[in-house]
């Protein structure tokens, strides 16, 4: 019980830190995307895996984050240090309002209401030309001011993309560590209790809705932070970042990695982004490949990659143990 936990976040963070120096420009580019997607997926998994809430509209908070950050930085010229937290706060604020109505529903109705709210956000972003740029979004969102990095040893040699990778990696690592803390806290254990048996949790006096709303807001806030990074990474924010297929995409990432594992979504983000790059080298039919992966997951590997590995590991151990007995 008291065995010291392995600080996975720190280890993974340290392992990924040297990428801009040893990897190519392309690998750094992919690394940035994976880090941002990983945060988005981990935030979704707070709902999906930890609490058992199937949100099909998580993209709303991701999109709100990217628009808030993009608008503040591009239109109002605010610095990143203000725009970034504002994106998280803005997304969390919307999550309070939408979540208030969503948590009153359960199961498929919850999924649908979250989807409906995300579509409303999309419609607003798509039509509000004066503020969101409408259909064409907002191009040319500036990079954060990273001149201060020039004075740092080694970091000073990196180009702007390398520096943005480091900045994203640090922010994502901090966020993921925070989400990890939340999951392991008493609050997180209550969420798991709700997931395992909602009725029983309510019966023992837990205010289930209050817990669900809290986690909905927290997850929305972190999704907003990842969205803020995503907008800057892509140098613009577009209505596609709030459109429902992106909700499905992040859900696939989460399930691909394994939603019952804290690191599942991260593994899923890595595998999906990497697969996409590899497969699009050979065929334009990436969506069909993604759909097929999804079918395999649903029918053959419901626990995702980590679930499959765990099962495989257990089987191997049994096999070895069996040999030992013989």
């Amino acid at each position, binding site marked *: 019980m008291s065995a010291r936990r392995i600080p996975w976040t720190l280890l993974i963070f340290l392992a990924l830190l040297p990428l801009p120096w040893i990897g190519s*420009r*392309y690998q750094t*580019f992919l690394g940035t995307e994976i880090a941002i997607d990983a945060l988005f997926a981990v935030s979704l998994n707070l709902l999906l895996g930890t609490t058992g809430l199937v949100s099909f509209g998580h993209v709303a908070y991701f999109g709100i984050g990217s628009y808030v950050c993009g608008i503040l930085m591009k239109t109002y010229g605010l610095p990143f240090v203000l725009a970034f937290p504002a994106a998280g706060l803005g997304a969390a604020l919307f999550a309070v309002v939408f979540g208030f109505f969503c948590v009153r529903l359960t199961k498929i109705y919850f999924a649908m209401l979250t989807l409906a709210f995300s579509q409303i956000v999309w419609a607003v972003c*798509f*039509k509000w*030309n004066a503020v969101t740029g*409408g*259909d*064409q*979004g907002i*191009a*040319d969102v500036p990079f954060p001011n990273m001149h201060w990095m020039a004075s740092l040893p080694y970091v000073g040699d990196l180009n*702007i993309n390398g520096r943005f990778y480091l900045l994203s990696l640090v922010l994502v690592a901090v966020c993921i560590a925070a989400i990890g803390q939340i999951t392991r806290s008493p609050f997180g254990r209550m969420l798991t209790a709700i997931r395992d048996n909602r009725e029983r949790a309510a019966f023992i006096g837990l205010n289930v809705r209050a817990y669900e709303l809290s986690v909905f807001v927290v997850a929305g806030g972190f999704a907003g932070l990842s969205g803020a990074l995503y907008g800057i990474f*892509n*140098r*613009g924010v*577009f*209505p*596609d*970042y709030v459109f429902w297929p992106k909700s499905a995409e992040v859900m696939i990432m989460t399930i691909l990695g394994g939603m019952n594992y804290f690191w599942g979504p991260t593994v899923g983000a890595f595998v999906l982004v990497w697969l996409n*790059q590899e497969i699009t080298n050979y065929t*334009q039919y990436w969506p069909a490949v993604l759909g097929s992966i999804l079918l395999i997951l649903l029918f053959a590997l419901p626990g995702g990659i980590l679930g499959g590995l765990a099962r495989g590991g257990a089987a191997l151990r049994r096999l070895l143990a069996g040999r030992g007995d013989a």
Partner: protein
Amino acid sequence: MRLRHLLAATAAALLLPVAALAKGPIKIGFPIPLSGPTAVYGVPILKGAELAVADINAHGGVLGRKLKLLPRDSKANPAEAVRLARELIVKNGVQFLAGTLTSAEAPAVSTIAKENHVVFVAPSAKTYELTDPQNFHPYIFRTASNTTIEGQAGAIIVAKWKNVHTVATIAPDYAYGHDAIAAFVAELHKLRPDIKIVDQEWPKLGQANFTPFITAQMAKHPDAVYCDEFAGDFISFVKQAAPLGYFKAIHDRLADGGEAGSIDVTRTLGKAYPLGIWTDAYDPVLWDGPNQPPADKAFDAKVAKALKIKYGSSWAIQGYVTIQAIAQGIRKAGTTNDTKVAKAMSGMTYTTPLGPRTFSAVNHDANAGEYWGKMVRTPKFPYAVISDPTYYNPEPAGH
């Protein structure tokens, strides 16, 4: 002294892989819509670009190197175009970017070109914002026309119509539509202060159902309409408007600045084409009149042969001249270094089958005009054609 030798040796060692790389082809990334309603324009632009690459390579390439085109389907979606442009640069190592179709995609890709110091030439996006002082950067170029020229040309045409007191507009709800309509309205107010704008409809790009917009517009009884629907959207618009009696109600007094006179559109609409409207094309291809330059006649024949479609396309010319302009810039600079090529292209005059065009030294805009005219059917051609195509830039040019 010794230090300098050492530095030179190091520099040489560092440059060696670059020199080895230089033997490969010069790669040009080409994100363009190849699916969806705008593919009607996107596909022939790409075909034209491929034809230019084939022509150039057949004559020994540029600076002794072949050109290589890397086309990608941008789906007329700015988010997708940005993703593809960056991937083309960091993953595929393209030295130049060309393409994009809509005025939503081009400004987004322009950002990427600016950041990565990659020359980007837009063959189709017309929003003036692409090269206005706020968004201009040394690496952006445009062979397309622009919304200012188009809107003014449209106003000049509409202003001449008799018995027109009220005008309505319909245009896609994004940069292109808004900027072109604004230019049109401003010019029309100057030419004909008596004309009132009675209705403005803004369906989205890729709108499937135009009916409510059409009926709402007809209810205002405009005498004439200025329209910026283009590509597949124009086709859908016409197919839904004609049965509702739209063109009859305005006595076919509609001017469209979205290249609806392109043979790619007239071919698709066939007998359903609304005759009597005024519209434009970069290259009318089927010239109902004596004024087609011989160079263009030869070019169109070449396109038709390469595309294996009778009469070819009105859009291939935009892809073709875009690649030719980049090649000419590289030759002029004597290097593929983007910064030097961009300098060489600024103010450069390049030839097209329809005469020379010049990239402005101020904003790198070719300020190209287009060929306008009334759409008619003649026994000579199987599709509707532009009657007596006239080059407007923005004033009509004499033949």
